């Protein structure tokens, strides 16, 4: 059962990833093509169409190769190779993107140097304000406090032989004890707290560290709507992660809680997020027909108002002259970090720590088991 769940999840992620990369070039601003600023209307010209067609062919080919490598990896290294699957596919998709970018670069042009700013009004970015953002932390602390006082009463297969470790939880996604999720609850809670802190930092960043729109009128209104939606989704993700984490850590205490549907729920959440953001369109990528005609006929591309040279490989933004920590992605939806800012590295470190703590905890237990 557990292997079936994992296989379906990984397969779903792979398909979702392939679909996202397939449509990605159509989701960005009209005058940004494969992370390069191009003349308005370039993507509708023969060169643009040809580059897109070749990108998609390479994407299919490389995805199939990645799938073969993935299956071979599982055959050789066992089920532990499963988590590498999406990474292999993303790497393959990135190669296709990078090759397309190289083909677009000869058509690169300078973006507009015109900037606009509204003099009136204040825009509230975080829905519900900071009180809403505190909710997940309160829930997680309440859950940890409950386990602190009642965890020792946990009996049965969830506790270890010495019985004193309230924070022991070797169970899997099916809600039954196994070796897959076998690391301490403390590590799980700290990891979740790390993710929450990172998400809250990004939420704060969307209100204070993100690059200004530099535009007025409908373009500004659309972009601000996109930012508010991203904030709402981030907040929803925080609540979702916390509720899921609280649910999982309570399994040893309440053995009747089922966790089998949680992975599927996470997949649905990711899918809905992508669809909502793609429909909304970042930076006016889904602007009304009238506005689109205006952009297509304007002589100078607006782009994202940053020169191409600051985008390393098309995905990493490094601009010491830009005070913004978060900037609009050039390929994909959402925001990227300005790696010239120390704050960006702190956010990255937090996310990495949150991901690494469970792995390190698992590794420590594994080494301890073999007396290392």
């Amino acid at each position, binding site marked *: 059962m557990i292997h079936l769940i994992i296989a379906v999840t990984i397969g779903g992620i792979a398909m979702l990833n392939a679909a996202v990369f397939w449509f990605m070039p159509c989701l960005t601003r009209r005058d940004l093509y494969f992370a390069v600023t191009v003349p308005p209307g370039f993507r509708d010209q023969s060169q643009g169409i040809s580059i897109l067609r070749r990108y998609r062919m390479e994407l299919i080919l490389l995805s199939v190769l990645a799938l073969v490598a993935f299956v071979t990896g599982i055959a050789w290294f066992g089920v532990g190779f499963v988590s590498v699957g999406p990474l292999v596919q993303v790497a393959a998709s990135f190669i296709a993107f990078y090759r397309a970018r190289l083909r677009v670069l000869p058509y690169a042009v300078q973006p507009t*140097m*015109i900037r606009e*700013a*509204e*003099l009136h009004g204040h825009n509230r970015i975080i829905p519900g304000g900071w009180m809403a953002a505190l909710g997940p932390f309160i829930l997680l602390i309440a859950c940890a406090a409950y386990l602190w006082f009642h965890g020792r009463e946990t009996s049965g297969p969830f506790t270890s032989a010495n019985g004193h470790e309230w924070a022991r939880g070797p169970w899997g996604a099916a809600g039954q004890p196994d070796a897959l999720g076998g690391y301490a609850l403390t590590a799980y809670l700290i990891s979740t707290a790390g993710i929450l802190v990172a998400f809250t930092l990004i939420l704060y960043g969307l209100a204070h560290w993100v*690059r200004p729109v*530099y535009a007025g009128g409908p373009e500004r209104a659309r972009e601000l709507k996109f930012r508010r939606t991203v904030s709402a989704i981030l907040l929803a993700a925080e609540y979702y992660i916390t509720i899921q984490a609280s649910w999982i850590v309570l399994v040893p205490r309440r053995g009747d809680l089922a966790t089998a549907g949680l992975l599927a729920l996470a997949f649905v959440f990711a899918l809905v997020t992508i669809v909502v953001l793609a429909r909304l369109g970042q930076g006016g990528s889904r602007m009304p027909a009238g506005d689109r005609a205006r952009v297509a006929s304007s002589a100078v591309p607006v782009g994202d*108002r940053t020169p191409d040279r600051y985008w390393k490989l098309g995905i990493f933004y490094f601009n010491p002259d830009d005070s913004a920590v978060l900037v609009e992605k050039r390929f994909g939806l959402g925001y990227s970090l300005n790696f010239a800012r120390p704050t960006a590295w702190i956010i990255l470190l937090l996310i990495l720590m949150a991901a690494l703590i469970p792995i390190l905890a698992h590794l420590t237990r594994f080494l301890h088991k073999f007396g290392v």
Partner: protein
Amino acid sequence: MLRIDLASRVPVYEQIANGLRTELVSGKFSPGAKLPTVRTLAINLGVHHNTVAEAYRQLASEGWLELKRHHGALVRERDRPQAGPDAMERFSRPLRELVAKGLAEGLSPGSLAREMIETAQKLEGER
């Protein structure tokens, strides 16, 4: 809405001052209204805060703004000033350059005159 062109040869502080003056002349800000702080406007335009501060100082010296430490820039009640003897000269010098640019680009003198009258009437009408 304020609009600047970083590629223009006109200094950015001057562009900001010109843009704000247009808003003030058209009466979009009533006396006592607050303009965005220097820091906010600098961030929103992606320019150094000294550039915005310079524009605010220029408008303050013209009597449009009152600059208060920690309170930002307030729009002042300002009567229509009596034009001095050299006011027209100060106005016509850049205008000559602008008209020459328009003619060089193929616009007719009549259309330029019409545009100028319409713009002045529009600004005056918005007050």
